[in-house]
């Protein structure tokens, strides 16, 4: 079974520039998550989709971050304009959701450095 795919793996941008990350979840998984993980910390949920609808974006800095999940499958996370404190690993994850399963499967992450 293919895992969660993310790209790009690494990105270096200057502050105030924009960046976009792409995620392809495990086939059939209804729930998709974007987490931000700063070095030395646990993953922090940015946004959670159930199919193509947002169920939790309470910790998403909406003035600069946006995410979408078209057709309930792939998702993109965009940051514009980037700040130095956005340097982190952006983890995409998916789960079957609901009573079918709560185990979250993570991708390898997209490493962002803002200089």
């Amino acid at each position, binding site marked *: 079974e293919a895992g*969660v795919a993310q790209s790009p793996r690494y990105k270096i941008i200057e502050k105030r520039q924009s960046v976009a990350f792409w995620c392809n979840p495990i086939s059939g998984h209804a*729930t998709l998550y974007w*987490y931000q993980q700063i070095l*030395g*910390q*646990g*993953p*922090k*949920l940015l946004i*959670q989709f*159930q199919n193509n609808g947002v*169920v*939790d974006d309470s910790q998403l800095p909406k003035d600069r971050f946006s995410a979408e999940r078209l057709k309930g499958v792939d998702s993109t996370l965009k940051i514009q304009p980037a700040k130095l404190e956005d340097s982190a690993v952006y*983890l995409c*994850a998916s*789960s079957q*959701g*609901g*009573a079918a399963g*709560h*185990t*979250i*499967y*993570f*991708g*390898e*992450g997209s490493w962002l450095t803002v200089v």
Partner: protein
Amino acid sequence: GENVGLHLPTLSVQEGDNSIINCAYSNSASDYFIWYKQESGKGPQFIIDIRSNMDKRQGQRVTVLLNKTVKHLSLQIAATQPGDSAVYFCAEGRSGGYQKVTFGTGTKLQVIP
């Protein structure tokens, strides 16, 4: 608000010994708890979970203990191996309208050969 944290940031264990990683949580409404392992440069990987109506669950070389009275969770790794070296996160989850999972800070396990 929700708070899931770990007692020790770094744990060093001799190869072959047992490891115990601890976690405290504050949300009594959590339905389940999960342990994840994160190796350097990789995403977190599911190890084992336990539902709130259980107090112990065993897997291959791992055991999770849940003490709801003191809101404490632990992960025991038997016969620790060098490949167990990683950061371990506990997470708490709630079912309901949608699954909500919150991660703690993490403990780094260093296995000494």
